[in-house]
């Protein structure tokens, strides 16, 4: 067995994932049974049993998905810790690209995070009602989610079991550096990227109160993408105080006071709540003012955090990078 699989972080991570997956697997089997026999209008013993079982099953899913959300930052911490074992890796960027499974796994984890959040939102709506109106919807949604969770489990195992500790890997200086020319999307340069970043933020805040829900979802996702590039290619260089250091992962390290967890956490949460508020209003016809307020608060905090690094650097040094 290789060093990676024997490292304590990976053991804890994979064991936690395996235990949670087992619970999710049991919940998926039970969900199939619920879907098969569910008819709220019946007053039979079978229906009462299904209602009791659904309460237990949905509680299990609720807690496991909540724990899975907490496991994402731990995954980031784990791959960051592995950079000590992988030659050439200085941070998680090198470790995540140590094989072909890393990047798809990270992307899948982010997609699952957003979908899990949506499931939790629908579950909350269902619990607020007296007659389980969204039981079938949330059950089917969970089964779809479970397919993705199964792929994630397989990718987790493939990824960690295929990280070589003998082959050197490329890390952030190469992956996100100047080599290979401009890596920004849509032919953007840094000034245009920043204009787009601030413009999209203002537009998103405005649209939360006026826009069609599909446009809001699209705008939220677009903002998240532009925000990612803005952090990696501009704001991050001020966090590292090095114009050539472009990496989304190094900021997760103690050297930078773990600010990456806060930055990415606030961005993901704010974006997710913007999407959830759109879904709640557009699809379920619910009032989502509270969600929108929290979303605006988080996104504003994100923008201020990013901007503050530039401002503080300028105040300290009198120049920009």
């Amino acid at each position: 067995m290789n060093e990676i699989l024997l490292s304590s972080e990976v053991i804890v991570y994979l064991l936690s994932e395996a235990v949670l997956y087992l619970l999710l697997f049991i919940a998926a089997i039970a969900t199939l049974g619920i879907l098969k026999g569910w008819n709220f209008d019946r007053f039979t013993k079978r229906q009462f049993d299904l209602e009791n079982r659904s309460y237990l099953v949905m509680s299990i899913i609720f807690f496991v998905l909540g724990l899975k959300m907490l496991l994402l930052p731990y995954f980031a911490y784990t791959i960051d810790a592995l950079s000590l074992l992988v030659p050439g890796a200085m941070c998680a960027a090198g470790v995540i690209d140590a094989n072909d499974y890393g990047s798809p796994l990270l992307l899948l984890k982010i997609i699952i995070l957003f979908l899990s959040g949506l499931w939790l939102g629908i579950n909350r709506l269902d619990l607020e009602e007296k007659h389980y109106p969204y039981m079938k919807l949330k059950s089917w949604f969970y089964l779809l989610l479970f397919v993705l969770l199964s792929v994630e489990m397989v990718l987790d195992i493939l990824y960690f079991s295929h990280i070589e500790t003998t082959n050197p890997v490329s890390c952030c200086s190469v992956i996100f550096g100047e080599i290979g020319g401009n890596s920004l999307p849509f032919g953007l340069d840094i000034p245009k990227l920043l204009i787009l970043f601030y413009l999209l933020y203002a537009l998103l805040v405005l649209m939360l109160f006026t826009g069609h829900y599909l446009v809001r979802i699209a705008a939220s996702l677009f903002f998240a993408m532009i925000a990612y590039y803005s952090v990696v290619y501009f704001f991050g260089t001020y966090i590292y105080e090095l114009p050539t250091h472009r990496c989304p992962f190094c900021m997760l390290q103690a050297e930078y006071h773990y600010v990456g967890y806060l930055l990415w956490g606030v961005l993901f949460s704010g974006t997710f709540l913007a999407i959830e508020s759109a879904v709640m209003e557009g699809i379920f016809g619910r009032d989502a003012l509270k969600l929108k307020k929290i979303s605006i608060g988080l996104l504003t905090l994100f923008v201020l955090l990013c901007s503050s690094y530039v401002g503080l650097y300028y105040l300290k040094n009198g120049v920009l990078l």
Partner: protein
Amino acid sequence: MIRIEDVGKRFGEGENLFEALKSITLEVEEGECVILSGISGSGKSTLLSLIAALDRPSSGKIVVEGELVSKLPDLHASAYRAKTIGVIFQHFNLIESLSVEENVIVPLINSGLDMPAIRKMAEQSMQRASILHKASQDVASLSGGEKQRCAIARALVHDPKVILCDEPTANLDRENSLRFIETIQKLHQAGKTIVVATHDPLFEALPFESRVIHMADGMIGKHGE
């Protein structure tokens, strides 16, 4: 109004299966007083707990004041009890470390009312149950009859439409039992719907209009006015 349709309640499975209620159908009109009588294990208390949404039936329908309570999720069951139901338990279920007034206030904690309004409601309820003079006294130091009156005050504090009493006189002497019946009579006159589960013969011939329903083996036996 309470409407119970074909309600069954089973505990356990296989060889351990026990049917506490077997296909119970019953209607209690608004303002009516119904006495469920029968020996221990006949299903009276189980039926009360289903009406109070403290438990869910295994089958059948229970509708109280237009609310389908047999399928209420936990969150809504609590709200239903807080709004519609007052329960008086055999063992009172009071919090011994609190005073009488504090015990009476407990059901109003999540009501959203301000404290002066809550205190006023508690005072009125204690007055109604003749326990106001012991308001500041710890429940642990009360006699059985006083505890019963405290439990009544607590059950009435939110002015519920339906009052459920589970073996209310089992721990009382004859004098206190008669006082309890007087209280029930006043509540009946005030238009409350009352269901009492008891095997106390005092309830077989109440001094006010009531309906006695005999239960045995989880089924309704003979009816009597």
